[in-house]
C-alpha cells in the first residue's frame, strides 16, 4: 500500500491501490494486462474503491427472503453430441478438448 494513489489522503485503513496490487489481482484472475493498463487501473480502482467505502454505512442485516431449493429427478436426457460439444474448441484430440501444457 502506498499513499500515492490515496486521493483523499486519509490513509489509515482505506484501501489505496498501487501498481503491485493491480498486478497481483491480475495474476490471481489469470488476466494479462496490456501496456499502460496497470497504471491506469491503479488510479481508477483507487477512485472506485473510495466510492465503495460508503458501504461501511450500511447496517448489518439478516436475509429475510425465503429461498426454496429446486430439485428434479436425475434422468438421462439427450444432450449435445460429442461433435457439437467440441465444435468450438481451438484444439481437440481423439474426441477430447486439448488444453495447454501443464508445466
Amino acid at each position, binding site marked *: 500500500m502506498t499513499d500515492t494513489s490515496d486521493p483523499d489522503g486519509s490513509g489509515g485503513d482505506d484501501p489505496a491501490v498501487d501498481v503491485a496490487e493491480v498486478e497481483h489481482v491480475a495474476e490471481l484472475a489469470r*488476466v494479462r494486462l496490456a501496456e499502460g493498463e496497470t497504471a491506469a487501473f491503479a488510479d481508477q480502482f483507487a477512485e472506485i474503491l473510495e466510492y465503495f467505502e460508503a458501504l461501511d454505512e450500511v447496517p448489518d442485516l439478516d436475509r429475510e427472503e425465503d429461498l426454496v431449493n429446486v430439485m428434479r429427478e436425475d434422468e438421462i436426457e439427450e444432450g449435445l453430441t460429442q461433435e457439437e460439444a467440441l*465444435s468450438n474448441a481451438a484444439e481437440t484430440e481423439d474426441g477430447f478438448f486439448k488444453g495447454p501444457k501443464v508445466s
Partner: protein
Amino acid sequence: MAADYNLFITEETIEGDPDTSGPLAGATVAVKDNISTAGVRTTCGSEMLADYVPPYSATVVERLTDAGATVVGKTNMDEFGMGTTTETSAFGPTRNPVDPERVPGGSSGGSAAAVAAGEADVALGSDTGGSVRCPAAFCGVVGIKPTYGLVSRYGLVAYANSLEQIGPIAGTVERAAEALDVIAGPDPNDGTTRDPREVEGVNPGVPEGGYAAAADGDVDGLTVGVPTELFDGADERVVETVEAAIADLEAQGAETTEISLPSVEHAVQAYYVIATSEASSNLARFDGVRYGHRADSEGNWNESFAETREAFGAEVKRRILLGTYALSAGYHDKYYRKAQDAREWVRRDFDDAFADVDVIASPTMPVLPFELGESLDDPLRMYLADANTTPVNLANLPAISVPAGEADGLPVGLQLVGPKFDEATVIRAASAVEDR
C-alpha cells in the same frame, strides 16, 4: 441504414414458424448478441467469442420463433453487457438513431437502436443493472426488465447471474408486453424460473389475456410513489420532463405521493461489488480450451490462460479485477458482505414502499444520452449513471422504461417499478404515460 448506426454484429435470419398465429406471427425480432442462437455466432460484443457458434438456442429464442417471429440479426452490445453506452463493444460503438453523435445507451444499445431505427419490430436485451431500460430511455422506446425468475436465462451468457433478466424492447408498451407474454414462464433448464401464479403472496400475477391485455391505459385510482432520492442529482431537464409525465398520470386519475427509499443511496456501490464479484467467477470459463479465442502461447497453462484472457477489453478486465479484489482475502467482509447487506436493505425499502403505493416512478436515467466518447475514460462517472436502474435489479423487481417526452430534442425515459411479479401494473401505468 443499419450499417450507419452499427446496430448488428451479425445479420443472419432465423425464420419463425410460419404456421402459427398470435401477436408475434410475422414480426421481426433483433436479439442481443449475448443470447445464444444455434448456428449463428454469438459474440457478446467480445473478441473472446468473435468466432463462437452456439450448438443450441436460448429458451427465449425458441419461444419467439415458435410464436412466429423471425430473428433478423444479433445486436451490438457493451462487451459481456459491461457498460452503459455500447462503446465497450469490440465491434465498435452503436450510434443513437435519434442523434448519431450520441450513444444509444447500454448495454443493450444495438437492440434499442434497432427498434428505434425501424430495423426490427421487437428486440431482446438483457438487464443486469439497467441494460434494457437505459438504452430504451436513450433511444426513445419501451423496455421491460422482468421480475427475477419470470424469464428463462437458459442460453444467456452469464455476466452477473443473480441480477440479470432477459427483457423485451419495442416501440410501444403493448408490443413489448406481447413479447413478454411469449418469453415469460417456467423453464426446466433454468431452476430460478417461477410461475407467478404459484408464488405465494403475489398479486395479481398474469392477467387474463396476458400482459398485453394490461396495456389498457387505465390508471384511475392507481397510487404512484415518487421517491425523492431518485430525482436528487438528476439533470434538471430530465426531472422537468419526468415530472410533467407524472402530472399527466395524475390528470388521468392516478394519485401521487412522495416516498423515501434511503437505501438506494448505496445501490450503485452494492451493485458494482456484487456484479463484478459474480463476473470474476462467471468469466473464469473463458480459458480458450472449450470455446472462444485462444492465444498462441509458449508458456505453461497459467501463462497460456493469462495470455488468452488478454483479449478481453479494458472494461471487462476492470470488472474481473475489481470482483477478484472484492472477494480476495481480507476484503470479502468489507465489500462483498456489506454489499449483500445493502441488497437486503434495498429489497426491504421497496417492500415497505409497496405497502402504500402500487408503482414507483422516477427518471430511468438521471442524464440525457451521452455524446460518443464522453464517458469512456471515466468508469466511475459511467457507473454513477446507473443510480436509478440498479436498485431494481438488487431487489429482483419488475420495471419498465417508457418515453416521457423530450428535452433539448433528446428522449427522456420514465421508469415505473412494481412489486415482485406484478408486471401487469407497471405495464398498465406505462401505457397511460404513452397515451397522453
